């Protein structure tokens, strides 16, 4: 169970994971030793899973293709969808994998360099898998927002007075 301080600390780390324990200490008022210990615990407990920058590849000029794939799966007795999902999550091409409610079962986010890469992956790896009944591939045309960050257009420039009461 997280304490109020832990929750506050995790929120700051989630916002900027580059901060050192000393900087975190200044900004939260918690002791840096405590912060070190909590981070180390959370890393072991997989509360903090990873530290990753979010890169907008579209701005680098490098070609990247993403697709959302709807997959219908025949559930297995005793395992449901887990066995298929565990197998799928090993593929490095699959960046995100969700079990869904509604008209299909699994939702996959796939990334490749070209459309051909993605198409081949679906045709050769995904569709032939045992228990996979059907797939529907939707290519991403443009990313407007990801993980809460707006990716489109110019930043809003705030024009405040230089000095105000």
């Amino acid at each position: 169970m997280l304490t109020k301080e832990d929750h506050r600390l995790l929120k700051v780390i989630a916002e900027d994971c580059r901060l050192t324990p000393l900087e975190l200490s200044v900004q939260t008022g918690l002791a840096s030793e405590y912060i070190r210990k909590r981070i180390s615990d959370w890393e072991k407990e997989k509360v903090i899973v990873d530290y990753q920058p979010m890169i907008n590849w579209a701005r680098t000029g490098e070609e990247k293709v993403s697709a959302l794939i709807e997959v219908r799966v025949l559930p297995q007795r005793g395992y449901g969808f887990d066995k298929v999902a565990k197998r799928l999550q090993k593929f490095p091409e699959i960046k995100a994998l969700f079990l869904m409610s509604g008209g299909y079962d699994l939702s996959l986010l796939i990334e490749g360099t070209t459309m051909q890469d993605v198409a081949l992956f679906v045709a050769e790896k995904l569709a032939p898998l045992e228990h996979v009944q059907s797939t529907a591939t939707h290519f991403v045309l443009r990313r407007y927002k990801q993980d809460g960050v707006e990716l489109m257009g110019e930043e809003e420039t705030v024009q405040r007075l230089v000095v105000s009461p």
Partner: protein
Amino acid sequence: MNRYLASHVAGLPPSGIRKFFDLVSTMKDVISLGVGEPDFVTPWTVRESGIFSLEQGQTMYTSNAGLFELRAELSHHLASSLGLSYDPSNEILITAGASEAVDLVMRAVLEPGDVVLVPDPSYVSYAPCAILAGASVRYVPTHAKDNFRLRVEDLNQLYTPKAKLLVLSYPNNPTGAIMRREDLIPIAEYVAKHDLLVLADDIYSDLTYDGRHVSFASLPGMHDRTLFVSGFSKSYAMTGWRIGYVAGHADLIRGLTKIHQYTMLCAPIMGQIAALEALRSASEAKNDMITAYDRRRRLMVHGFRQMGLDCFEPLGAFYVFPDISKTRLSSEEFAAELLKEENVAVVPGIAFGPSGEGYIRCSYAYSMEQLQEALKRIRQFVERRLAT
């Protein structure tokens, strides 16, 4: 054409901030810590409701007191957040920003000869509004050793039977000081003893970092003696929408409304609709902003103390008020030389009253990166001054 100006207007000194603003405006690439408004843009849900109101053709006047729906929502909000009880039908008036509310209070209750007691340092508008209403002002000094809280001992020293109105503005601009319940109780006794009215400017009441704000109006016997002023500018980053309000005894609100109806008519309807949306659905966005301010606040206090300056820990608003007397510069000299040498703008404490001398006001309504860069530059400046 000056001869046409009324003498009390001609004699009104320009705001100390304005003087400094003119100087800063002439310079390029300045990092300014001089701004008294949030760096956040109004939460999207609030902006969207304003846009929608225009699409729906909501462009008319509202009643003088403001949209009833907004007053009713405010009444709930004040009850749940501060334990205050106001009847939305006749005890709340929506104004064009809290600034209008301050002006209305002064004009509605003051007459020539009356004295207004104003804590010093404090926001720049109280004294001019009091003077424009024909009254005079006595500054009641507050001190760093008291955490810039108003003390009855200081009030006693300046008491005059002509005193009619006491201004309380906590969390305070420029110091960031707050008043706790135990600090307010003796003030309430003083107010009752001398039969005073209180203008409680609680505009920063949401921005506190160590427990909830206690409103003076919530103390026993103080509801009817208090005109509670607040607004949406600071809590919801809505400065440009100009929506504030004043709540108090129905007789007083009726008096304020008379002036409001002849001079302002009503606050802008789009802002009122947006304010209603802010109360209904922007509390999470507000809390996120408060969390961000708190981190910056700690960074700033730490930064100034690391420089070797005394820095009182502000527990409210979004300002730090470090003591710069060790540099042997006046607050105006400090601000002017810092601007010239390091391109950083801060506001001299003297702009907020005589007790502000020896301090500078730094707003932390800026990004972490800007604050860190500003602190680095101020540090270089202070180190040079302390070395000489």
